[in-house]
């Protein structure tokens, strides 16, 4: 066990966990931020995607002791960001979700894409979002919503 100070959604949190604990379980179990989902545990599905230092990161395979001082942003706070808010609005407008289990991760990946590439092409979207699996197969609407958010953001 070791003590870690983490910057999560803009506030400082202290957790006492095994250093090898994946960030996902620190967020879900210690901080009760359950919006980030456990899917595969091996970085193969993208359901656990959060932003670490602004980069879309699979939290299920990142040990907490590697995070350091990099700010962590989860789905619970992404709406405070103008890009995050535009993506959430587009997601609702385009009725993207079905079961919704993967959508926290989809949204976090989409926000990271739009912060990096303001006007993503289909190819950009496929490359950036390809690691986020959706069992309901909402992919076509995800692409539509990303383009709509991009347009909203101008």
């Amino acid at each position: 066990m070791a003590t870690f100070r983490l910057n999560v959604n803009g506030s400082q949190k202290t957790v006492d966990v095994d250093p090898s604990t994946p960030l996902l379980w620190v967020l879900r179990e210690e901080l009760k931020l359950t919006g980030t989902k456990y899917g595969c545990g091996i970085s193969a599905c993208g359901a656990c995607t959060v932003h670490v230092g602004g980069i879309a990161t699979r939290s299920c395979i990142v040990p907490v002791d590697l995070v350091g001082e990099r700010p962590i942003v989860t789905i619970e706070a992404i709406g405070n960001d103008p890009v995050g808010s535009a993506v959430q609005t587009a997601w609702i407008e385009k009725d993207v979700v079905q079961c919704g289990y993967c959508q926290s991760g989809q949204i976090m990946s989409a926000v990271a894409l739009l912060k990096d590439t303001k006007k993503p092409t289909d190819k950009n979207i496929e490359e950036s979002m390809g690691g986020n699996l959706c069992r309901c197969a909402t992919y076509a609407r995800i692409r539509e919503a990303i383009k709509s958010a991009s347009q909203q953001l101008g």
Partner: protein
Amino acid sequence: MRPALKNEHDLTLNRRSFLQVTTAAAGGLIVSLYLNRITVAQQPPPPKVYPPDAFVHIATDGKIRITVNRLEFGQGVQTSLPMILADEMDADWAQVTAALAPAGDVYKDPMFGIQMVGGSGSIAHSFQQYRELGAKTRAMLMAAAADRWQVAPNQCRTENSVVYGPGNRSARYGELATEAARKPVPEKVTLKNASDFRIIGKRVKRLDSPAKCDGSQKFGLDLDLPGMKIAVVAHPPVFGAKVKTIDDRDARGISGVRDVFEIPLRKAQALPSLPTDSGLRNKRAISSRLIGISPVWNVWTLRSSLQNTNSSR
């Protein structure tokens, strides 16, 4: 041409023969119909009269919460069943929210007789039920308005969450809610003609979207009850494998892990008692599965520790 059905028994038989020809194509359907066959006799029937207050809540500010007697897992039932009820109720759709029902007899599937989702039956089985609930709620609101204005209920009409009476009288559903709740639930109601549907058949936004876009929607994995323990099942690497030896030293070494043991999976009935502390040891028997009990979801270490202890055939 199909012969006319004489009674419900015929319906069941017909469904079963239908089942035989569709076995290969439709997994969900098979499961549901199989359940239908085995549970109808064992389960108490769902109530014949559905109390509207178990399904509809109208707040004094006009907000309408409709309870959905199914699980939402993406099929959209958390939106479609409220649409059906709201339409018969002449509700203002913009005021409607949906809540998933807790466990309860009143929320059983009217055809299956158990509380379940499957076989694409949600709308087919609850269309009439939700229409009647909506129509009954509307009738109670009209009765309350008629009382208030000292007119006959048939002098009133409804539209978009408002009751209109003779002259220029009108009252919003929200302001009538408390009085309407005291009215008797009508036994019989007249349903709309399909041509008068205002919400059914229209494209509306899903009611479950916002919570699924901001992380606030709770899924099964997110359930957190006081003192709750999590059971983690380590499956063997090949189907039908049996445990030869168990080395659970690593698993037991994980902080918080309560116990590691084999569970019998010969009878599915043994499963429901597993997540509790008591009775666990009684369930130990010849088995091809291991289970670990932990106070947290640290499946990532527990599962990999247990995985190593499973032997192959």
